[in-house]
């Protein structure tokens, strides 16, 4: 590598050979590439919105401050970030990991290829709906706004709905592939029954082991059928499925109204009760945040902790049982999004919005505890990038989960709902710091496996990315969150720089995240080279469909 010139590295990379990759490795890398392209786009969008809100002296062209343009960006920002980037990265990692962990081939490589294409295409369409046709009902799609043809163009609505539908169809493809792989009774699972696999998948065996221990009986299952990370992937995917169904249903509803508008029927939008719709939609959407993310993340922490330490997970049965508990918790917490809705029944606010939501402190706190103790028991450890990023991920959720729990309270919500507090102190820190730091840790752990031991161009660049990203992510979340405490709304356009001190600080730290992304990208491109990048998208030369565990 030392002998190679910059130009050579840019073209050929370090020692990356795309031709040696299996089809599954290639598919995984294709999704990872698209995920990071979308991450760059979403970071850029975020910076544009921050700069607009710094006030009239911002250096951007005037068009970005126009409401239709600004809210188009705000609409596509979470679609690109959550689906285009996060979903792609998570799905790619899991479709690679499940065969690796279960020692079984992936059910269908064609389906895996379809998943990243469908999500990429869907994200691009949704983005175009905002960029070209200014379709901007936001990701919340509060009824009847998405069907308001006085404000939005019809074609924009169609393109957006088709885009989101493609994302969800890709998601369903991922789910099918994962379940078909987990429940295939081949290889190590040849002698397992479906009942055994399901009991293990839901974490029931972990709970029964705990109960049996309390009763002084021998364990229900000494060797659970599925490893803990696979249980977390299975469990999280249940929520991913339900969420996809809800979003698809909402898309169909919008589509029906758009078609009725075209055909001249123009049905009464108020035939659909806005509050009922809001409950239904948040029930599904919340499964992304409070089900899928927390469960997938917990599973990833467990996997990373065991790989980094080479030791068994601490309190594995408790971790399994906690995943089962999270199943019920994640289905019952949506009402914390409706604490500011006065027609919402008070009992739902109290039980679902406050009490059950508070349980997330318990389930996430438990995952944090188990991960930390597993690491602690294996000390001394080397401060490698996977460990550093994992600790960063723990910090992210350590900050973001309590910030959300604080607002899931009727008293606090009255003065914090829809402010930048929830947007930044809670979910931006959860996603940018908590989730992405965890995913970076997984990326550095999986890098040798997915790329056949390709040398990274520079460890210094990896560390530069780490510190810039961590400090930038926390700083941006903290300062923009403080703007929320000063009354700054999250879905509002401020053109006079009303909160410009906080916004300038948030923009400075936000630019660190953007610079970190450039550094990460440079490191990866100089490792695999442009030829390698193109090679990833070419068909694989061999038909091996999973990487052997050594």
């Amino acid at each position, binding site marked *: 590598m030392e002998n190679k010139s910059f130009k050579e590295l840019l073209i050929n990379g370090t020692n990356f050979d795309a031709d040696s990759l299996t089809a599954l490795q290639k598919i995984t890398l294709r999704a990872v590439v698209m995920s990071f392209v979308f991450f760059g786009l979403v970071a850029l969008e975020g910076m544009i919105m921050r700069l607009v809100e710094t006030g009239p002296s911002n250096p951007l062209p005037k068009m970005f*401050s*126009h*409401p*239709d343009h600004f*809210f188009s960006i705000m609409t596509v920002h979470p679609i690109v970030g959550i689906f285009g980037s996060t979903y792609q990265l998570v799905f790619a990692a899991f479709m690679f990991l499940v065969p690796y962990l279960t020692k079984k081939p992936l059910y269908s490589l064609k389906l895996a290829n379809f998943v990243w294409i469908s999500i990429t295409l869907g994200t691009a369409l949704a983005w175009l709906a905002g960029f070209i046709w*200014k379709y*901007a009902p936001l990701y919340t799609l*509060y*009824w*009847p*706004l998405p069907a*308001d043809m006085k*404000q939005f163009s019809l074609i924009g609505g169609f393109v957006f709905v088709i885009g989101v539908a493609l994302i969800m169809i890709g998601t369903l493809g991922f789910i099918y592939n994962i379940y078909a792989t987990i429940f295939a009774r081949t290889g190590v699972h040849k002698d397992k029954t479906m009942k055994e696999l399901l009991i293990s998948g839901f974490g029931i065996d972990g709970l029964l082991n705990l109960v049996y221990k309390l009763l002084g009986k021998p364990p229900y299952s000494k060797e659970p059928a599925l490893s803990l990370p696979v249980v977390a992937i299975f469990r999280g995917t249940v929520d991913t499925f339900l969420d996809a169904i809800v979003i698809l249903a909402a898309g169909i509803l919008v589509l029906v109204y758009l078609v009725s508008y075209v055909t001249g029927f123009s049905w009464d939008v*108020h035939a659909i*009760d*806005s509050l009922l719709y*809001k409950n239904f939609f948040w029930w599904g959407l919340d499964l992304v945040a409070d089900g899928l993310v927390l469960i997938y993340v917990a599973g990833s922490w467990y996997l990373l902790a065991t790989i980094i330490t080479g030791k068994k997970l601490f309190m594995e049965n408790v971790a399994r049982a906690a995943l089962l508990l999270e199943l019920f918790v994640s289905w019952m917490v949506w009402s914390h999004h409706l604490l*500011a*809705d*006065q*027609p919402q029944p*008070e009992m739902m606010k109290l039980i679902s919005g*406050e*009490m059950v939501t508070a349980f997330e*402190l*318990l389930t996430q*706190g*438990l995952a944090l*505890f188990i991960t*930390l103790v597993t690491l*602690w028991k294996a*000390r*001394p*450890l*080397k*401060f490698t990038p996977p460990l*550093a990023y994992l*600790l960063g991920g723990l*910090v992210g959720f*350590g900050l973001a989960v*309590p910030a959300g*729990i*604080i607002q899931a*309270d*009727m*008293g*606090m919500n*009255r*003065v914090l*709902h*829809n402010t930048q507090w929830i947007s930044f102190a809670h979910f931006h820190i959860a996603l940018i710091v908590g989730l992405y730091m965890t995913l970076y840790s997984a990326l550095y752990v999986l890098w040798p496996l997915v790329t056949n031991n390709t040398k990274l161009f520079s460890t210094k660049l990896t560390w530069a990315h780490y510190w810039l990203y961590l400090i930038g992510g*926390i700083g941006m979340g903290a300062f923009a969150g403080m703007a929320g*405490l*000063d*009354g*700054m709304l999250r*879905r*509002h*356009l401020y053109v006079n720089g009303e*909160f410009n001190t906080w916004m300038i600080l948030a923009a400075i730290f936000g630019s660190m995240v953007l610079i970190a992304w450039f550094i990460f990208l440079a490191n990866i491109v100089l490792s695999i080279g442009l030829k390698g990048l193109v090679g990833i998208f070419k068909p694989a030369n061999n038909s091996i469909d999973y990487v052997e565990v050594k």
Partner: protein
Amino acid sequence: MFATSLELLRFHWVAYTIYALMIVSVIAWFGWNLTRKEKVRSIIRIPFYGYMAFLIMAGVGHHIFTYNSIPWVEEDIKRHEIKPDRSYLIEVADHKWKMPQMRAKEGEKVMFDVRSKDLTYGFGLFRKDGTMVFQMQVVPKHKNTLLWTFRECGNFDIVSTEYSGPAQYDKETGEDLMFVKDGMVVECKEKNEKIAMKE
């Protein structure tokens, strides 16, 4: 304990900042000790069940604390049983408010009944420095009521706190067309008392 949102949010700012610094420091300290070759002695030993109990207490205790220290929580839950000193009916449609000039005296309970004919809006009161007094969502075709005891006085602006499409703003300048300057005027107690004494 907290008379206004300003007091509550100041307390929240300090408490959360301390917590944030603490959690970052704990993980940093943890990471540092993970890599040390010499044997590390634990400063404190946290028993698992103690940690679980702490999390449950934090989750439940938070709501008990706010119920007892934030006056608008109980008022909100029991608003149907409380007789307000004044009531205002506010209608909103097509991004336009239909409301009278609203007035109250410090200490009075005011019932805001906001009805939307088309989209989901928000109804929020803000101080002149941009800080929020309170807000609620305005769901169309539903009765959205909020009872508020004014423990502070002054002129407050009204802002729709929920996005209802770009038509809420001026196409070119981006100014918020639903912003109502001094939409709510609350007379100060002292001033009232002085006037009453003069009379």
